[in-house]
Each structure stands twice: as structure tokens, then as C-alpha cells.
């Protein structure tokens, strides 16, 4: 708890009035990334000098161009990749000293949906998420938790279907259910709205926002949709090459014309709708040879 009181005295990020959080609204898990760098190969750096403190519940959207290291960033947070340098503190404890099991107690990670080689039923697929539940938990209470989360996502009628037989929207629901079944305090999702039509896109972000607000969870998602992020996120984390965090803050501070033109290299116009920025894209910034990078 020491880390929380420390946090209270720390500098506060300004929030716009209508979204202002109560001061004691500090999440019960605090994630702090300190000078984090990571690369997949030796001598290679994909993300660098990442300093980020997430200590409030809310929906955080990570945006940035393809290949900038968004997935890598959230994999480091979930200890799926081991840091090259720097450290990540989860409630003050270094992620380097934690086992996968310890991290899994705080953080639920939902990877990009991919088809498994051998497909199990929806129910069994979600049951896998119970892997790390308290060992004393009975089969019965696991099944109840699975059922509850299926009701939350309205997929209880699919429970006997094979995962491979579902639509993209249903896949995503099952993946989220698997991440949620242990009731993690932090939920991290890699592109949960990719491949979804607008109905499911809105459904997913609404759900994630509701989880953050009603449960006080930290929900971190990667998205390529700037407008969706601008509208639903409490905070936006914008990354730019070469794998650094360019801006963090409420959408209206981050989703701006200058930032988008700098980071993405696309001309645009940003207007305001209901307090949230809306991006209208223009021409790409090609050089005379047609290069966009």
C-alpha cells in the first residue's frame, strides 16, 4: 500500500473537467515502467526509454503506426517478453523478480485472436483462463465463473460450439471472456477491435470502458482506430518511431493535428464532437519519389 500513498503525493496528470477523477480513485494495482528498453534480437532495440506510470483505473488506448512496438510494449508489461534494460514495477515489485504466475494474478492478457491448431469448445477455451485460479477452487466454482463471464458477453448459447466455428466478433468475445474469467485487476488487450464491424467495435470498447468505470479496473488496449480511441479512452498513449512514447494524456491532448501529422505522416483535420476529438484524414505526406517512410 506504500506505493499508493506515495502516488497520492506525486504530481498529477491534468484531466479535463468532465472526466475528472476523484483523488482517492487510485487503482489497487499500480504499474510503473522505468526506462524500459527491449529488443527481440541481440543488439536490437524495438522499444526504448519507456517511462510510464499507470495508477488510475480507466480505459487506456495505445495508438501508433504499424511496427512501432505497441504489441511489444504490452508484452513487456505482461512479462511475456523479458526486459533488456530498465524495470517494470507492479505494486512496487520488480517484474524481473516475479514469476509468470505472480504476474498473472494482477494482469490478464488477451493476445491477438488466432486460431488454435486444435480447436476446443467455447466453454473449454474459456475454462483455460481459470488455470491460475486459487488451487483450492473447486471445479464447480470454476464452472460458475465461466458461466458468469459467458453471460456478461452474451455467449452462453455458444458454449458447446468449437472455437474454430465462430465468427470474428464471437472469437473476440471468447478471447475477452478468457482474459476476464479470473477477474484480473488489469486487463491488457492486443487489437481487440481488429477485424470487427462497427457493431462489435462499439460493443467491445463500451464493454471495456464499463469494466474500467464500474470495476475500477485498468484496461489497456491497442487500437488502430484513432476516432474510437479518442471517443472512448480515458487516456491515450501514443507511440512513435523508434519505439518511444510520444505523448500520454487525455484524448483531446494527444489526438491533435500536430501529433498525428508528426507520428503518422498523414495530413488531417481534427474537429471536436461532444468533447472528444474527431480525426478527418487528408493526403499522405509522400516525398517526390512516393516514399512514405
Amino acid at each position, binding site marked *: 500500500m506504500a506505493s499508493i500513498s506515495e502516488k497520492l503525493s506525486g504530481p498529477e496528470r491534468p484531466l479535463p473537467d468532465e472526466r475528472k477523477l476523484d483523488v482517492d480513485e487510485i487503482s489497487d494495482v499500480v504499474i510503473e515502467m522505468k526506462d524500459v528498453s527491449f529488443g527481440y534480437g541481440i543488439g536490437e532495440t524495438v522499444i526504448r526509454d519507456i517511462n510510464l506510470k499507470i495508477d488510475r483505473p480507466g480505459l487506456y488506448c495505445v495508438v501508433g503506426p504499424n511496427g512501432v512496438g505497441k504489441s511489444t510494449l504490452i508484452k513487456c508489461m505482461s512479462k511475456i517478453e523479458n526486459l533488456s534494460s530498465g524495470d517494470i514495477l507492479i505494486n512496487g515489485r520488480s517484474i524481473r523478480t516475479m514469476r509468470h504466475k505472480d504476474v498473472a494474478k494482477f494482469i490478464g492478457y488477451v493476445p491477438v485472436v488466432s486460431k488454435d491448431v486444435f480447436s476446443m469448445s467455447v466453454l473449454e477455451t474459456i475454462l*483455460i483462463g481459470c488455470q491460475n485460479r486459487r488451487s483450492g477452487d473447486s471445479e464447480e466454482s470454476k464452472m460458475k465463473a465461466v458461466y458468469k463471464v459467458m453471460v456478461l458477453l452474451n455467449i452462453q448459447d455458444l458454449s458447446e460450439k468449437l472455437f474454430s466455428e465462430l465468427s470474428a466478433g464471437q472469437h473476440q468475445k471468447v478471447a475477452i471472456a478468457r482474459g476476464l474469467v479470473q477477474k484480473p485487476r488489469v486487463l491488457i488487450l492486443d487489437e481487440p477491435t481488429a477485424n470487427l464491424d462497427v457493431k462489435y467495435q462499439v460493443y467491445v470498447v463500451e464493454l471495456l470502458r464499463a469494466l474500467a468505470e464500474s470495476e475500477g479496473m485498468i484496461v489497456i488496449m491497442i487500437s488502430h482506430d484513432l476516432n474510437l480511441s479518442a471517443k472512448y479512452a480515458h487516456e491515450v498513449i501514443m507511440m512513435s518511431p523508434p519505439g518511444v512514447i510520444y505523448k500520454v494524456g487525455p484524448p483531446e491532448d494527444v489526438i491533435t493535428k500536430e501529433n498525428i501529422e508528426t507520428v503518422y505522416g498523414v495530413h488531417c483535420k481534427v474537429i471536436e464532437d461532444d468533447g472528444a476529438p474527431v480525426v478527418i484524414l487528408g493526403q499522405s505526406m509522400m516525398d517526390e519519389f512516393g516514399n512514405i517512410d
Partner: protein
Amino acid sequence: MKFIEDIEEDPLIAKPMSRLVREWSRTDQDDSDGYRKHMADYHRTIRRRLFFIVMCVVVTVVAAGYAIAYGPLDISFADTYITIWNHITGNVQNAGMDFIIVNVRAPRIVAGIFGGIGLAVCGAVLQSVLRNPLADSYTTGVSSGASFGATLAITMGLSVVNSTPTVIMAFVFSLLPIVAIILLSKHRSASSPTVMIMFGIGLMYIFNALTTVFMLWSSPEDLASIYQWQVGSLAKVTWDNILYMAAVVIVGTIVIQILSGKLNVLATGDDNAKALGIDPHRLRVFLLAVTGLICAGVVSFTGVIGFVGLVTPHIVRIFIGADNRYLLPASALFGAMLMVVCDLLGRAVLDPAVLPVGVVMAFIGGPTFIWLLVRKGNSAW
């Protein structure tokens, strides 16, 4: 103003959504009718799986009786079981019959049962661990390693088929590919399941080439022994052999069954496994080591028996799904059944000629498998 009260006022969230989330967050337990129906469905699925497993046991036991009864000297099905019962209870009545059944015929059948269990479990585990439907003892190089070891022993004149040196050489060489795969996987770039299996296939070709070279140099008699070893046979397994084989298979299968829940997690990918609190690399290496031992423990006594390891898990998945907690025991028993039935057919159909069990399995199982695949589509994987 707190978040928790905000949700009702948040214009971005539909009312039913906030109700659902609130309802979910209240408790993760449930006793509604919906839950009871859901549990009833689930239990029905489990009963169906258990039924499948029980059926495999029944067919195996019945077929084993026929298989023991079948032979040059006619023994009735009932007499077979009575004699075995009497032998177990230490109350032997017909010493001649007892000798034929217990010492001459039974070892072959029991070897078939343990061989089937071992090879089928190995196939199922390897397929999940390496996330590849083609993984089995061939594509990991285990069978080729064993073949080479046996060939070496035979051509160097160390033994005739199935005597101890052949078994030991086959065992040692069949473990080499798995050890190599495990050592290789220490390199980050080579630790993916796909690389592991491609490495196994590479080793398979190397061992096969070596075996061929030794066969070119060997005498006709040796060649016959080597050939017999390569198609596999249950004929020469003795009770002494079975003791080792059964010990390895039983212990290995139990260990793997205990890990079957974790294996489910591993089968969904390394990232998922880590996120759910499992070290995928350690689990994979451990499971590879155990399957390598089981597989080596079987093939070094029986020779290389194909088909059962690769195809049994696929057939079983069609019937009961891919959940390893059920797939592993069901595959084990289905594999045992397949071995006993096919060995019996191999002796009965072209009597007095005997077809090797692997060949019969391929003849019967192959078309059946293809038919199941076509009929069921590929939705199971």
C-alpha cells in the same frame, strides 16, 4: 464523484451494458436456471466422453480374449478368461493350457496394449506440445533413431533381434533426437514448436540415411532382422520386456495426465501460457522428455510401429474433442484397442501368413480415418 457511480451517467455506455457488468462484478458465482442448464449440458458432454473411454476398454478386453484364444491350438473364449482368472488367483488347473495362454500368447497381447497406450499418448502429447497435427514419433526423429540403433546392434553382430543389446541400442538412439531438440531449443531463435519439428524431421532423414548405409553393408540374414525390426512386431516381446515397457508407459502416462490441464494452456500458444502463469519452455521440455522416454520404452522392444501414434489422437478428437484432460486417456485406450484388434486381424485374415500390426492398422485405419475427415470436415482442427 467516483467512477463506480459514473457508469450510469456515462452517455457512452448503453444501459444494458452497465447492468450486465454490474451483475457480473457483484459475484462470480451463479445459481440461476441458466447455470443449471449449462451444467447439465456440460455433464452430458463429459458422460459422452466417459462412455467413449469405457467402450474402448470393453472392446479391448473382448478383443484381447479373442486374440489370446486365436491360434494353432483352439482354445475357447471362455476358457481363455477362466485360465487367466485361475492363474491370477493362483489356482492353476490345466498346466499345459496355462503355459500356452500365459507364457506363449498373452505377452504379445499385453505388449500390444501397453504399446498402443504409449504410442497414442505420445502422439497426442507431441501434437499439442508442438502445436502440429503431424507430430509423432516419426517426425520428431524418435523412430528413426531407434531404427538406427537397432540396425547398428544387428549389423555389428551384437545380437539377434530383440536380445538385450538391440533393445539398449534402440533405446539410447531413440532418445538422441529428443535430447538434441531440447538442447537446440535453448537458443531463442530455435525454440518455436515449428522449428523443433522441422529439426526432428531433419534428424529423421539423417538417421534414415545412416540406417540405409549400414543396411547396404549387411548380410542377408541381418537384413531380414533389420527389416523385421523396421516394420515392428509384437511377436517376440517377453514378460521380462513387458515389465520395463509397462513401468515406463504407466508412470509416464500418469505424469502426463496430471499435467493435462497445463498442456491445454500450452497448446493455445506460448504467449497465452505465460499470461496464464505457466513457463511454456520448461513445460515443453519436460513433456518432450517424458514422451521421448515413453516412446523409446515402447519401440525399443517392439520395433517401429507406425500409424497408431499419429492417427489415434486425430480419430479420438473427432469423437470427443481436443481437451487434453479427456483426449489423453481416450487416446491411450483407443490406441490399445487398435493395436489388439489389428494384431488379431493381422494373424487371422491371411492365416497362416501374418501381417505386421502396423500394416494392418494402416490398411484399416487409413481409409477409416480419411472417411472420418471428409465426413466431419476439418472443424476439429
